[in-house]
């Protein structure tokens, strides 16, 4: 049986796909490589941009709390209070309650509300309503902060651009302005949460 098959095999020995197919495949290979190079470049650029933003936020927070880098005459960065152990904390400073970041849980109303209220001008002569303390918004990827942990609340001026990284909508017209905020810094020096301050609270 093998002999007839060898006949067929020998007859087909020089058969193969056309040269045009090789040309098409090489063109496809080149295009594919170009696309992959572009994707790789975008991925790296995105990663670098994200790192720069994250570094800027951390630098801003630490810079304000430690070295007074962004001094403003009206709201100077100053520690509000060192957090005592939880039972005593209730009396002086409200226990920081970390809520999920706004971009993860869209129902984190307090933070969004704070930003919206800031943009609305108050009617002249109206008595300011007593402000309730806002919840802290957990900083993404920071270690979790439990009520038994100790930390420090630091008031800083955050650029609106940095707030956007928390998923809070920011008006593009005011992107370079600063917003007062309380940053909850753990004992290890890592910021865990951010609480935006209403304009009314400052008064």
């Amino acid at each position, binding site marked *: 049986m093998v002999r007839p098959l060898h006949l*067929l*095999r020998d007859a087909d020995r020089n058969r193969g796909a056309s040269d045009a197919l090789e040309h098409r495949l090489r063109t496809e290979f080149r295009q594919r490589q170009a696309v992959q190079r572009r994707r790789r470049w975008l991925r790296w650029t995105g990663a670098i941009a994200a790192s720069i933003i994250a570094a800027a936020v951390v630098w801003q927070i630490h810079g304000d709390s430690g070295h007074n880098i962004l001094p403003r005459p009206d709201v100077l960065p100053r520690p509000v209070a060192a957090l005592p152990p939880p039972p005593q904390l209730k009396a002086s400073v409200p226990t920081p309650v970390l809520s999920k970041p706004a971009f993860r849980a869209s129902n984190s109303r307090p933070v969004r509300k704070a930003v919206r209220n800031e943009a609305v001008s108050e009617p002249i002569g109206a008595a300011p309503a007593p402000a309730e303390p806002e919840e802290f918004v957990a900083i993404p990827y920071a270690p979790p902060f439990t009520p038994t942990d100790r930390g420090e609340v630091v008031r800083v001026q955050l650029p609106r651009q940095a707030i956007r990284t928390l998923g809070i909508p920011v008006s593009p017209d005011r992107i370079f302005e600063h917003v007062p905020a309380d940053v909850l810094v753990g004992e290890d020096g890592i910021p865990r949460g951010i609480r935006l301050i209403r304009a009314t609270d400052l008064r």
Partner: protein
Amino acid sequence: MELSFPLVGIRVRVNDLTLDSDEDLLRRSAAGDEQAFTTLYRRRQAAIYRFALNMSGREEVAEEVTQDVFLTLIREPLRFDPERGTVCSFLFGIARNFVLRVVERDRSFVTMDDEDSFAPEAADTDVLSHLTRNEAVELVRQAVLSLPTVYREVVVLCDLEEISYAEAASVLGVPVGTVRSRLNRGRALLTEKLRGRGEGRNAMRCSTW
């Protein structure tokens, strides 16, 4: 590729990709080396083309399948797992899937004989001695095409493309023993078909003369 001559203490770096293994070429191709891809294509395209041709019987299908196989290699080079077989069997495996899809689509193209009516006889009978070479080639091709798919693929892989039983088993996803038994049965079926066709052709010739 690196050639070493330990007796004289010489190691030579050869820039000839044709000496590299399929695995090396595929790895370099995946890393974006077009020359490696071209070398691998030129080395393997004919076998893939012939496999598809002998499985489908149509040149346009063979061309299409060859294209699809190497496009898969371009788009998903990491699909290859060296632990599951060689690059050659990987390529044949992709080609087989594409061919079976085409054969399934055009089932009417290949006429299948009733397998149950098969009665094995002694193989290796010289049934083609009185036919011209071209006629014989076409006769064998048609006989191969008329085999049921499970036998056709082992005959094409092992007898026509001469890949090892182990590689064929890897391509087909069956044990080596199954490859052997299918090959025996496929060859016997082929002998039977060739005998019938050869006798028919001979009778026709006699009547013409």
